[in-house]
């Protein structure tokens, strides 16, 4: 028994030594002798394992490349979102610059910061980044390139708060583009959700006036808060009310408060002097054109009257001078200081008389 154990131990030790020796020999083998053995193993016994490893590495590569592709796709999507935001901002700024260039003077540009009040169903106020030190006063009109935004509720030195047309206290006198329909714009008494939450009502329109959908509504300038001709919105439909003598219309505002990023605040002087045809109102356009035509007509009339007066004066002068000349000649008074025109006329008459005398002489036998 002891012999068998001893033999087994020797065999084990021998196997270990053999393995160690073979391993060391394999380690010491040169590259050209080592590679055939490893290659033979790879092609035979280890071939399935090589296949497994290759498959696993492919999976890994696919996984990593998929992650990278996903990252690239995410970054592209993010870039697209950013570019869309930049494009929108650029468009807003271009419009604001365009409005500023059309207004030319009498406005204060400001950025509109949206108040984050989650309990507020609709946006009714905006914080503006310009204040009284820039010339903004309370009740100054706030406009955007699309149209009316609201009024200044409070003006601090460096910032101000704008009350939007969505505020329950907002009122604006309004008119249609042709100036025939007029009324007062209120916030819609029954606000809906989403884009319908910012609708307006045009109240007090005369019953005989029927406004068609998509009729553009402008500020009329009455009341002095807003200058004439700022776009408020477009008529959507008529609202049935209990009023008998007036009509009420639902108006879709031109400016969406959620999209307002840059506004212009009109100064008091500009508010007083008006904005002209900045927003393309036909009534304002027609009105100003009529004024221009009337002014042009007046100047023409004045010019014509002036010309007529001068002609009449010249004619009277000629008659007066001719009368004086003929009277003087009739009574034989020599002129001492004849006027050049009269002298010339007298000389012409003398020449004519001499010519007539000579003609008479030649005709006489």
């Amino acid at each position, binding site marked *: 028994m002891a012999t068998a154990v001893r033999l087994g131990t020797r065999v084990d030790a021998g196997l270990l030594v053999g393995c160690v020796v073979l391993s060391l020999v*394999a380690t010491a083998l040169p590259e050209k002798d080592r590679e055939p053995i490893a290659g033979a193993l790879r092609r035979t016994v280890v071939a399935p394992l090589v296949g497994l490893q290759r498959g696993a*590495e492919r999976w890994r590569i696919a996984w990593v490349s998929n992650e990278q592709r996903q990252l690239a796709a995410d970054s592209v999507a993010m870039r697209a979102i950013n570019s869309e935001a930049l494009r929108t901002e650029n468009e807003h700024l271009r419009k604001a610059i365009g409005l500023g260039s059309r207004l030319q003077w009498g406005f204060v540009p400001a950025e509109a910061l949206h108040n984050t009040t989650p309990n507020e169903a609709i946006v009714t106020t905006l914080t503006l980044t310009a204040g009284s030190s820039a010339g903004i006063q309370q009740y100054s009109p706030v406009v955007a390139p699309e149209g009316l935004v609201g009024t200044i509720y409070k003006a601090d030195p460096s910032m101000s708060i704008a009350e939007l047309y969505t505020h329950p206290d907002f009122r604006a006198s309004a008119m249609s583009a042709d100036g025939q329909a007029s009324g007062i714009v209120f916030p819609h008494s029954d606000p809906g959700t989403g884009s319908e939450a910012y609708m307006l009502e045009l109240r007090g329109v005369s019953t005989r006036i029927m406004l068609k959908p998509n009729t553009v509504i402008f500020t009329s300038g009455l009341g002095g808060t807003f200058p004439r001709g700022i776009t408020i919105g477009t008529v959507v439909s008529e609202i049935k009310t209990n009023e008998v003598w007036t009509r009420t219309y639902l108006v879709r505002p031109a400016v969406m408060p959620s999209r307002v990023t840059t506004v212009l605040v009109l100064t008091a002087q500009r508010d007083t002097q008006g904005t002209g045809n900045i927003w393309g109102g036909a009534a304002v356009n027609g009105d100003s054109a009529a004024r221009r035509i009337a002014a042009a007509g007046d100047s023409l009339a004045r010019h014509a009257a002036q010309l007529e007066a001068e002609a009449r004066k010249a004619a009277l002068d000629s008659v007066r001078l001719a009368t004086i000349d003929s009277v003087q000649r009739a009574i034989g008074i020599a002129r001492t200081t004849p006027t050049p025109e009269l002298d010339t006329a007298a000389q012409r008459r003398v020449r004519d008389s001499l010519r007539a005398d000579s003609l008479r002489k030649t005709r006489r036998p």
Partner: protein
Amino acid sequence: MNWTGAVRTIIVCAILIVLHYTLRPLLAWRASIDFLVVALLLGSVRLRPGAAAVYGFILGLVSDSLGVSAFGAAALGMSVVGFSASWLKAVFFADNLALNGFFLFLAKWLFDIISSLVSHRAHGAELAMQLFVWSPLSAAVTAVAGVIALSLLKPLMEVRTA
């Protein structure tokens, strides 16, 4: 070890070897799991020391054949580790997962030390870094993975008696 036990051991070792060539490349960790060492220890404790050394030598050759250099280093390390595990099988048979994990850790670290020293792949600080940072980390990961694998494969290893 009867035939049933031998077949069960072969199946479990085959699963571990397959895991070594599938899960390890898929994870591609810097301190990777060495399922071959787990398979070596699992088989060695059921073999005589000499047979365990041969088993380790064969596993090492398989491992070396897929390497680009140091052919024979893994065979040497696994022969020594297999022989040692078989010689210490009384300790390793203890039904204690923590102890098994510790021996897995020691086996992997010893294997890494032998193969690193024999292969001459690193020198100086790099070798020290490999031996005292990455090898212990890899050994720890292997020990944890080995304990989990042994726990999962325990029902397959148990011999049922009617």
